[in-house]
């Protein structure tokens, strides 16, 4: 079922518009506190929106009625929510948790348990059937929550940060399960990691402080991010300027060489770069972009992120030791290959 939604929750500064074509997955991408959970919970009926409207196929999830919001009861929304804490019923076995949706729709205990067994098998956790939720690991609990959501045969699946606080192995296992069961279903998946969007979603909506700043097909959005925010979420170095004969004229008057087939002069344009293609060089290097060190961020992977006001680069510890950059020092960046610039205006 197709989802079209504008979610407004004034108290949390959220006003976000999303569209998900039937049978596709949308990644709702944003950092912590950007309003992802609020949007998801408003769609599910756990949080009451105070403006906006949402339709799922032919049913309304919520809508305006003059000044009043008309909220459809959660049970009539025909969707399923997988929360970060899995929200399994603690007094029921794993099997009965997964049997819950069919029980709620009037199936007998035997019937609904048979259905639950099928879903536990499909999600690869049948051996957990008799266990209690409190004895499960985080990854197991989340997998059971996914099985329970699927068992409710929802027209929309909402996954709130499915990989949050899982260890690496559990995340890998859950990721491959989602890759298997999500295709063909209408899904909204919230995440703070651009890789999840690339991996699982055909389109992406980037959420910044409660608003969707970019919404489009995942690959195109990440190749040509239209905002610095989206580029940061995608892990790309991003810089914008004005197109000026084979160069991007930056705000401070410097020029970055780039290719820009079809770009008209004077249009607003940007380049998005793989951070590995940006290098630190001595000041006399031709075509270097001169910048000032703003922050130095040690990364977990043994590199140091040297962030200027215009560009940033990840340098190895050995290189960092040789250059000894300090905050406030001048710094010079070059880009390995000639980057492709794209227009920011439509």
């Amino acid at each position, binding site marked *: 079922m197709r989802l079209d939604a504008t979610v407004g929750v004034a108290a949390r500064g959220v006003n976000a518009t999303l569209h998900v074509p039937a049978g596709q997955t949308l990644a709702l991408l944003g950092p912590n506190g950007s309003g992802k959970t609020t949007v998801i919970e408003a769609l599910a009926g756990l949080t009451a929106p105070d403006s906006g409207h949402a339709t799922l196929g032919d049913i309304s999830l919520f809508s305006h009625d003059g000044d009043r919001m008309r909220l459809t009861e959660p*049970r009539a929304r025909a969707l399923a929510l997988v929360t970060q804490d899995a929200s399994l019923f603690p007094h029921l076995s794993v099997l009965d948790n997964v049997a*819950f949706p069919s029980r*709620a*729709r009037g199936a007998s205990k035997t019937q609904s348990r048979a259905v639950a067994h099928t879903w536990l098998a499909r999600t690869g956790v049948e051996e957990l059937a008799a266990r209690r939720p409190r004895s499960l690991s985080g990854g197991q609990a989340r997998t059971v929550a996914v099985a329970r959501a699927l068992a409710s045969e929802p027209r929309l699946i909402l996954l709130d940060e499915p990989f949050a606080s899982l260890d690496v192995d559990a995340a890998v296992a859950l990721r491959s399960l989602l890759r298997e069961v999500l295709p063909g279903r209408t899904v909204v998946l919230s995440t703070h990691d651009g890789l999840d969007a690339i991996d699982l979603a055909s389109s992406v909506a980037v959420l910044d402080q409660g608003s969707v700043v970019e919404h489009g097909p995942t690959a195109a959005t990440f190749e040509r991010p239209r905002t610095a925010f989206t580029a940061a979420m995608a892990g790309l170095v991003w810089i914008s300027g004005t197109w000026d004969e084979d160069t991007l004229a930056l705000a401070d008057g410097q020029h970055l060489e780039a290719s820009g087939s079809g770009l008209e002069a004077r249009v607003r344009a940007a380049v998005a770069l793989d951070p590995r293609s940006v290098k630190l060089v001595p000041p006399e290097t031709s075509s270097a972009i001169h910048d000032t060190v703003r922050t130095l961020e040690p990364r977990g992977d043994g590199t140091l992120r040297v962030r200027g006001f215009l560009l940033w680069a990840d340098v190895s510890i050995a290189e960092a030791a040789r250059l000894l950059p300090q905050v406030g020092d001048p710094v010079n960046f070059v880009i390995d290959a000639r980057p492709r610039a794209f227009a920011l205006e439509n």
Partner: protein
Amino acid sequence: MTKLPRWLVALAIVAAAFAILPLLGLASRANWAALPGQLTSPSARTALWLSLRTATTSTALCLVLGVPLGFAVAALRGVTRAVLRAILLAPLVLPPVVSGLGLLYAFGRRGLLGHTLDAAGIPVAFTTAAVVLAQAFVAMPFMVISVEAALAARDGRLEAIAATLGASRSRILGAVTLPGIGVAVAMGTVLAFARSLGEFGATLTFAGSLEGVTRTAPLQIYLARESDPQAAVALGLVLVALAIVIVAAAARPGRRVVQ
């Protein structure tokens, strides 16, 4: 664990002695050899049996009515809740004799509702039903307070998830909320039963002391304390034993983590 100051330990020993001495006092006056005979005497058996029957019935009443009342109070907000809670929980601290008077003027022959009940051919005061009403009146607050506190500790998330999975309101209540507060309901049940079993003042005022009809074990003990002190002690020891069992039962679920 850090060591406690000595003066505190000393005070604790005094307190423990204060709690235990009366029990020892009871035990010291018991004629252990004659105990079986005293407990199987017709009046003791009648009183114990009446106590168990009425306490069980009033506990059931507390469950059927007190649990919904706890839900209703928990659903309220602000001043309304504070005021209603204060009124509903008053029987906890009211002198039982006052509760008995109140019951008399509500359900007694000339009471607010008693007149109607009487006309309908249902006399209440000074019947076994009055004993049950007196017990339920003083015991209900334990159930209400247990249920309300347990509900206040829930954030309603699991209920909301159950709703998205298609559960009706009744199913959410029966399959999610009630099991979730099961420990609290069990605790309320145990406390209500214990309070019902020990009820004395309200029962005497509202129901009287008629053997086999309204004379429960506490009333029998009070009556026998001068004419046959050893019989009173014997019956008293039975109530002590029951109280210890009940408290132990109530403490066990309390140790489990309430989710």
